[in-house]
């Protein structure tokens, strides 16, 4: 079958109506077609399994408060790295540095060897670090599809003259953007609400839409900030499945998450922060037996994650 996301097919046959009439084989083929049109197209200078992002001696101070204290870790290309720790450990601060929201007091962040810490925020996204937000931040008055197309625009170059005169590049980018955005909406499983305003979507759909918008920028590294917050157990499982699907499609993922079921279910490696310092770094099975981690969770603030760690051990 042809690529289902192309615009130049028969418009009478919508993706959704055609999905209903597919048998399992056709469905798998269809999903593969969607996944391949969503897969990253950018060439990375780093081989699979090598260091994609290096966090190097990162220190951040807000006045007297040291939010991050000499934190170093690597993210390898193709892995899902979990960044965990009790509340206030500095996880989101770390994300904010990685995406240029804050500047580090000292230390550096290197993506494929290039420093991000002096770059403008939108340049960092164009370089290849995209993120979602702990508290969902969509463009409320836009449709779901339009939200995702904004993400694809990060890779586009049309500006006012091109759009005003509708030059060929504008047409090419518009078409490419919409096709990619449609594929992404289907990839994250919300294509049926593409035409709805973002604010009108159910909570779970909004979270998925944020992921689609971030993926639309064709990131080399995708940062998910508590993507499972407020989800039911079923939704968490579906989300874990999606995160694994994103990795399998060729993306590298860093995830900040409190829910241990999600964290242990998807991550290949964990970095644990406590009071702004890194206290552990390794395979999830090792990390959760680490005495320093256990004491940070049990001895520190009472955290929702605590019982989950114990349960995981049982």
């Amino acid at each position, binding site marked *: 079958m042809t690529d289902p996301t192309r615009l130049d097919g028969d418009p*009478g046959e919508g993706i959704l109506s055609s999905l209903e009439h597919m048998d399992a084989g056709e469905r798998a083929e269809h999903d593969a077609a969607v996944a391949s049109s969503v897969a990253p197209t950018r060439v990375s200078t780093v081989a699979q399994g090598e260091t994609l992002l290096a966090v190097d001696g990162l220190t951040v101070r807000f006045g007297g408060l040291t939010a991050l204290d000499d934190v170093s870790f690597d993210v390898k290309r193709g892995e899902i790295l979990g960044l965990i720790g009790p509340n206030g450990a500095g996880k989101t601060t770390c994300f904010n540095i990685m995406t240029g929201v804050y500047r580090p007091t000292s230390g550096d962040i290197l993506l494929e060897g290039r420093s991000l810490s002096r770059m403008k925020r*939108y340049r960092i*996204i164009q370089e290849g670090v995209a993120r979602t937000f702990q508290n969902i*931040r969509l463009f409320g008055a836009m449709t779901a599809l339009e939200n995702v197309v*904004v993400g694809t625009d990060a890779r586009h170059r049309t500006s006012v003259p091109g759009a005003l005169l509708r030059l060929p590049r504008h047409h090419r980018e518009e078409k490419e953007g*919409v096709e990619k955005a*449609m594929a992404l909406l289907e990839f994250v499983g919300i294509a049926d609400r593409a035409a709805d305003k973002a604010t009108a979507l159910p909570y779970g759909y909004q979270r998925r839409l944020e992921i689609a918008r971030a993926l639309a920028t064709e990131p080399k590294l995708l940062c998910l900030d508590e993507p499972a917050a407020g989800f039911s157990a079923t939704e968490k499982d579906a989300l874990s499945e999606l995160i694994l699907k994103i990795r399998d499609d060729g993306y590298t993922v860093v995830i900040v998450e409190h829910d241990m079921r999600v964290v242990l279910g998807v991550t290949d490696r964990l970095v644990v922060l406590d009071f702004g310092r890194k206290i552990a770094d390794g395979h999830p099975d090792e990390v959760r037996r680490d005495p320093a981690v256990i004491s940070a969770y049990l001895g520190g603030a009472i955290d929702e994650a605590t019982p989950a760690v114990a349960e995981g051990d049982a």
Partner: protein
Amino acid sequence: MRERMHTVSHWWNAQSRPVQWAYMVPVVIFILALPVINPPIITTEPYTDFPISLFNAAVFALIAIGLNVVIGQAGLLDLGYVGFFAIGAYTAALLSSPDSELGVRYPWLVIVPIAMLVTMLSGVILGTPTLRLRGDYLAIVTLGFGEIVRLLADNVDPLRGNRGFQNIARPGGDFPDGTPIFSQTDALGFYWLAVIIIVIVLLFMGNLERSRVGRAWIAVREDEDAAELSGVPTYRFKIWAFAIGAAVGGLSGTLFAAQVGYVNNQRFDITTSTLYLAAVVLGGQGNKVGVIVGAFLVSYIPDRFQFEPTYRFLIFGVALIILMIFRPQGLLGMRQHLLAYGRQAYQKLFGAGAAVAPSGLSASSKARGDLAETTPDDHAGTSPRGGGE
């Protein structure tokens, strides 16, 4: 009734953009014919010449379209927009009036692109330092800009303050009977010109809206940080919004100066800026048709009620307040189409039968009504700004 409107809006949204424009042709023709028809109840005569009243409204509408880019789309509160209108008018004056020290008399058609470039540049100059500010701070700075322009007109000697500039260039051409098409006394030609300019500007604005540029503006309006962290170069596109808004403001300034033939420092005060803002808010921020309707009303109502000179601004004010209480989103709500291939994409997803109205179903449920309302608004009445000269 509501359901019928909904059906109509679905039908309208299912049409392709060229087809929609084709349907607009008779509407535009009607708008153009309005001053000739001079319909009894609608006319502003005998108090104000109807074509002049309509011309002023059309200039007002053009201003509102430009300001809508800045306020409605990019969400930047600009309280000094009259400054750009003034720069456009003064550029026309300096380049063509015999009173000008430049000593040149360029034809109007040459002046228009120059004036648009000059205002665009002034938009960039204003925006470069100030667009790092947000919200209230930006509003204050733009307010200051409007005042600076006015005070320059008052105090800089070559700008002639209150004495002003006479005999500003107007476009040429004669009617078959030998009378000039564009004259100070008969605004018919100027009105037609204004409507045609509005149509062209709307076409270009539509192009911008359905592109990366329009999406960037709306993204900035909705959540500037999230926009930047989604890869939108927010600062650059905010400056573009200022520059384009300014260029349209400058264009309307030259049009106005040409019709009146005279510019001095008396029409560029803060009240005028406020009325521009009122037109945009009243009609519906982020809705091009809406702001045209808003501009028409703001300009036309005081003209229409001129037989009641004592209370006409009271009537105007009360009407504004009532409207804002019952329609805080403006007459026509926000409405935008941000994808050049949006229609095809939604149809692909939901089947050909689905006429999808993205972004703002409530507003688009009036699609057909919009057109009817557009009609009067394009040839709206006189502005309270200068009255009908």
